[in-house]
């Protein structure tokens, strides 16, 4: 077959586009978005996907057409003795430049919302990455972190209030980690020695989602997972109260035991 190679290359745009079209039907696309701000990122992704998709199909089909039409075995015309075209160069420099500049400017607002415009709310919790777990510290009734009434959990079961802005203070106790909530489209590396903030808002009333560590942190990196539970404020407060009581019981029990030992 004379045009075998041209048609092989035509498979690239056909299968390439088909893969992206079919993937969502097999649940191989964005994980479910439960956040208030995540759709902005999804839309940007889809915008870039469609734009690059058009360029992808255009250039790949052009490559196929040239391979088919200018096949040395079938093309009887003499080659075009051309060293280039100034006009074309100018056109295909300015058009992509304008497009790229547009893409850059178009998304600045989303970036600023995600990483620069910290909401003016009290810190909901402090999350600390440590090999290989996510620890969480809630401020307790006095609303301040690092006071005796703090509620500390180290079992990777982290609760957040849904339907309101959550502000996290995040840091690392040892190496780099990355706090990644795929269902909320947020990710931030945590760096030892640096304190940072993250914010997000869950729009669903009740959800349980994965917390993923997305930065290599050692041999146990793969199992550094957590579960984030989003629940309405009332339930969240009740959970906090329950955990605070549990913590107190433990502390009291511990104190009693220590006393016993002293008596002995």
């Amino acid at each position: 077959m004379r045009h075998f190679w041209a048609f092989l290359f035509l498979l690239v745009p056909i299968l390439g586009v088909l893969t992206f079209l079919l993937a969502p039907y097999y649940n191989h696309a964005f994980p479910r978005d439960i956040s208030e701000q995540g759709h902005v990122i999804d839309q940007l992704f889809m915008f870039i996907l469609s734009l690059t998709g058009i360029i992808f199909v255009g250039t790949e089909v052009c490559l196929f057409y040239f391979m088919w039409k200018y096949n040395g075995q079938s093309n009887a015309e003499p080659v075009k003795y051309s060293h280039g075209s100034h006009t074309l160069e100018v056109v295909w420099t300015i058009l992509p430049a304008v497009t790229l500049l547009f893409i850059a400017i178009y998304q600045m607002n989303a970036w600023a919302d995600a990483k620069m415009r910290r909401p003016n709310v009290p810190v909901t919790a402090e999350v600390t990455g440590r090999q290989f777990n996510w620890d969480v510290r809630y401020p307790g009734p006095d609303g301040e972190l690092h006071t005796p009434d703090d509620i500390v959990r180290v079992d990777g079961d982290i609760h957040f209030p849904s339907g309101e802005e959550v502000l996290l203070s995040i840091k690392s106790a040892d190496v780099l980690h990355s706090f990644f909530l795929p269902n909320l489209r947020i990710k931030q590396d945590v760096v030892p020695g640096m304190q940072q903030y993250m914010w997000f808002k869950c729009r669903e009333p009740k959800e349980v989602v994965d917390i993923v560590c997305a930065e290599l942190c050692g041999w146990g990196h793969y199992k550094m997972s957590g579960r984030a539970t989003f629940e309405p404020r009332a339930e969240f407060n009740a959970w906090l109260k329950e955990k605070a009581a549990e913590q107190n019981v433990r502390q009291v029990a511990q104190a009693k035991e220590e006393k016993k030992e002293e008596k002995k």
Partner: protein
Amino acid sequence: MSTITADAHVHSHDDHTHAGSFLSTYVFSRDHKIIGIQFLFSTLIWFLIGGLLALGIRWQLAYPWSSMPILGKLVYSAEGGQIAPEAYTMLFTMHATVMIFLVIIPILAGAFGNFLIPLMIGADDMAFPTLNMLSYWFMWPAFFAFGASFFVGTGPASGWTSYPPLSLTSEAQMFWLIGLTFVGVSSMMGSVNYLTTIIQMRAPGMTMFRLPMTIWGMFITAILQAFALPVLTAAGFMQLMDLKLGTGFFIPEGWSASNSLRASGGGQPLLWQHLFWFYSHPAVYIMILPAMGMVSDMLSCFARKPLFGYKPMVYSIAGIAGLGFIVWGHHMFVSGMNPVLGMTFMVATMFIALPSAIKTFNWLGTIWGSKIQFTTPMLFALSFVSMFIIGGLSGIFMAATPVDIFIHDTYFIVAHFHYVLFAGTAMAVFGAIYFWFPKMFGRMMNERWGKVHFFLTFIFLNGVFYPMHILGWVGFPRRLADPYHYETFRHLLPLNQFMTWCAILMVTTQIIFAINFFYSIFFGPKAGRNPWRANSLEWQAPSPPGHGNFDFQPIIYRGPYEYGSPEVDEDYYPQTTPPPTDRPLAVPAH
């Protein structure tokens, strides 16, 4: 532009070994061709090792915690062939390390740079032959250091980026850093040599704008290396000192991990990331620009048509190199770096897509109106263009900072750089081997098996790497020994198994290449000087060229892309053929 810029004197060839012993001719050789071939063989062996490491990664992702057949029994016999999580971490660390530092960079600059630069510019050897020899032999301490690092503890396991503080908790990292330093020394010697050679030793008439694109790629790469590499070497020493001498460049105050408290502190882990990427981002262009050059040469030769837009191609290579120095921050959008900086780096990164786009359009322009000969090297060159489009476009997703928040450190980035580095550079290198093999060994490789090799590699590489985009779309993180214990990613296992089988078949396919390669060295049909009827200077030398390269003094009359010129009857017009006015008959000088 026909002024003679190069020094016209013919070097006396006898000042370095003509009739030396076997050791000085083939082992400690100062001949650039032998050194190039030494680099080629060493890097191909490491290519095999890197490929097998990749299979280990793929096995674990397809059949987590199940014992790996054949290789697993050999390497992890204590675990019953099972890949332990620390072994998995070592696998992807060393896969990347080997492929980047011991395969791609040395095969482009070391093997092809060495072999082609003097031949293509019309010099009898490199400017500094002894330095050139050293640049190869300094790879050996690196080979040993990286090789030894496998056996220290569980091996280096901090990723090829060696981010502190994690990297400071591993003893094997010392060997890794020493290896890195030697690779750096070797590259530095090479780049100084290439720059001097290209600037000083061009044949009479070989102006800068008559250089083939391959040489432009090598030239700009050498500049990039000369300016960026010292930063990495310095940073590597700083990390070595943090590791061994108790300094604290990258260690924050009061830091401890793995039950060891470091007394020093006051450093910043992000500093390493800045220094590392200040080299390693230009390094990704070091890993693609020479390939782009070689592809341009192959495309023009087998399209039998001049390269479209030679000067814009040169300027866009230079543009990529220039912009390459101010985009390193796009590796650090979610690292904790000031988000305002993220915006600056985003704009710069968007613009680096521009010269790549210009190059792609010019490649398409080159095959427009041509007469394509579908030889094996041409197929690889065409696939470079096709695959580079994918790799280039997927870069735009990552340059977009808000989108990067989601896809950072997922398989989307893995797809992106494999499309650029494997489907791009490695395919270009395969093409270049088929293309310049007759010049290197004086014999042709088998075309039929070459095409089978191309076809299977092309199919399987897309089977491995294209679905990675889809994985990234789901947020599938890289570097996880077992991603399936997350509910979000559990359903991705079948797709991963498909990819793994494609990877196994792709590696198996390379047996065809290996047999073709070694068989052809000894039994391939003899090639003349110019089997592809190409224009550039190396094809006027004997195949293989003897010591001193040319058996005549090359004088250059035109650029290397005069295919289908109306001035002559043949469809090619070598750079050394005098114009018709100077001679009565239009016979190419062979």
